[in-house]
């Protein structure tokens, strides 16, 4: 059963990924990307990684792709000529893609010979991955967690500062 789900999800991911790069309309590409990311979330469910599933859906599907769509709709679409997806870069892209594929396959099969990785430890924060992450965040990692909150505040200040219109007396017309 699990293998069946795995192979069907993988097939769908590859199919949608192909659709992302072959669609001529960028809006369609973005929507196919949503599909790819959702099916990847399905793979994470198979791995019992429920926290990553949540993050995948909220951040990638909910945040990043929606941002893509916003950007696409902000630049007026009609001005962009619907470009052919096979432009001059494609031979280089194919070579690079193949190289990455060979690399990944090689290290998946033979990686043990080259890299020595530490042995996995058992989770020490109780059962359930999300709960474990929460416990770790508010337990031993509370210090960096608190600094991260100040970091977010800083990012907000910066965004406000950069996007604010200059005050009238600040830019004297010369």
């Amino acid at each position, binding site marked *: 059963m699990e293998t069946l789900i795995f192979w069907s999800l993988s097939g769908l991911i590859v199919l949608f990924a192909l659709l992302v790069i072959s669609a001529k309309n960028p809006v369609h590409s973005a929507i196919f990307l949503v599909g790819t990311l959702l099916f990847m979330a399905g793979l994470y469910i198979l791995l019992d990684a429920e926290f990553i599933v949540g993050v995948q859906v909220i951040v990638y599907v909910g945040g990043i792709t929606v941002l893509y769509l916003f950007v696409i709709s902000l630049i007026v679409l009609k001005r962009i000529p619907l470009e052919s997806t096979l432009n001059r870069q494609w031979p280089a892209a194919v070579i690079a893609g193949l190289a990455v594929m060979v690399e990944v396959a090689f290290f998946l099969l033979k990686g043990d010979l080259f890299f020595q990785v530490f042995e996995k430890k058992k989770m020490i924060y109780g059962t359930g991955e999300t709960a474990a992450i929460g416990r770790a965040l508010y337990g031993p990692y509370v210090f960096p967690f608190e600094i991260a909150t100040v970091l977010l505040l800083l990012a907000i200040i*910066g965004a406000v500062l950069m996007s604010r219109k200059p005050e009238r007396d600040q830019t004297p017309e010369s």
Partner: protein
Amino acid sequence: MESFILPLRDLVTIAPAIILLVWSAAILIGLVFVRSGRLHRAAPFCFALIGLALAGVAYFQLAGIFDSLPHPEGVHYTFNQMYSLDGLTLFFQGIFLAAGFLVVLISPRFLDEENATSPEYYALILLSVAGMMLLAGAADLITLYICLEFMAISVYILVGYLKAQSRATEASLKYFILGAFSSALILFGMSLVFALTGTTNLEAIHGALKTVGDGGQPLLVLALILFLAGLGFKIAAVPFHMWCPDAYEGAPTPITAFISVAPKAAGFAIFIRLFMFLFQPLTAEYVSLVGLLSIVTMTVGNVLAVRQTNVKRLLAYSSISHAGYLLMGLMVREFLGLQAIGVYLVGYLFMNLGAFAVITFMRRERIGGEDIEDFSGLIHAHPVIAAAMAVFLLSLAGIPPTIGFIAKYWVFGAVIKAYVATMDRLFLYVAVAGALNAVVALFYYFRIVKRMFMGDAVTRPPLALGLPARIALGLTLAGTLLLGLYPDPAIRFAGWIHMTFIGFY
């Protein structure tokens, strides 16, 4: 089930940073109530000074306690081993606080000239100093990364603060994109180290790496290269220096002064901590890579500086070459090398901030004050400022009796001693390259001195320095000259860096 641990007792150890955060929040909240008028300009400056002064008091308390400890050596963990208040931390925190203080002092005149509002400016300076102070004490890869971003983001914003100027926006964007890229490289290196050892605590990693055999070697070398590239961006070492002149030129001049000293020192703080703890098994690779980086950095920085006519750009390239000299000290991972870095950073703090302070003062009315021609005949109109600038430039060139000479002396001493001890030719080559570069550097520093003393006097609107600017000039001048004559305090202070690593080899 363990209880949630919020170690309130440990907060004392980060008291200076907390004080800075509180006062920067006070500045931002005050912004809501006072929107215009004199108070709008003056209050943030005063708040920033008070915040830095109080943080300084807290810092001296901690440093005093540290100094009187019977066993100050080693790491002193707080916050569940996420943070450590040790010699390395305290040394660098002192540098950051001093840099923040001096930069705040030279800022108000510049902001008035540029007609820019100031509340966020001072709040961001306090925030970035706080971020760097936490960064210096990060004892865990996660804390280290978050503090690194903390520091970097506040600096990106400060560089683009005068966003009405297109070159400021360009500088900020360039710095941001390359900075984000370098952070990604560092993060990748961290993930490799985690894959090897299964822990993020630096000391635990150091212990775990002892048992990693040859199987782990390739992964560790890869991590070393990634860390070198990522941190190379942060300290503007040569193949990774492209952002540096543009960011320095486009930033408001006080911020240029700030980023040329404080984030660079912060880069060295994590450089030392990471490379001492993580890469002890790779001594040969480490020495050759850092040595090569050092030679290339100082040579390229110096050669490119020769042709510059914009003084800010010139000092940007000069600061690249100084990073090369600092890397020389980093090659030697022992007491002398670490102490040399410390002495160099103390000197660099005073002389570089002083030189940039003078450039900041040169900005007036319609004069940019950045072109080398603007310095022509300065001695006739403002002898004191011209003389001070000459002292800073002589110190940057490494001429006695200034702290710049002591700094170079210590760095060369460390490298030569390492050569005698190991007979590794690379140390000798690096020392020779450093000596040759010092000659090149003399040429372009003296070009400015010559313009100031022998150039034609041009009538320009006079400089009017306020009291804060005078204090800043006096402090940097005193630091450069007095520490040059009596370097003992700087040398002793620099010795603190090594305290962290005593009994550790």
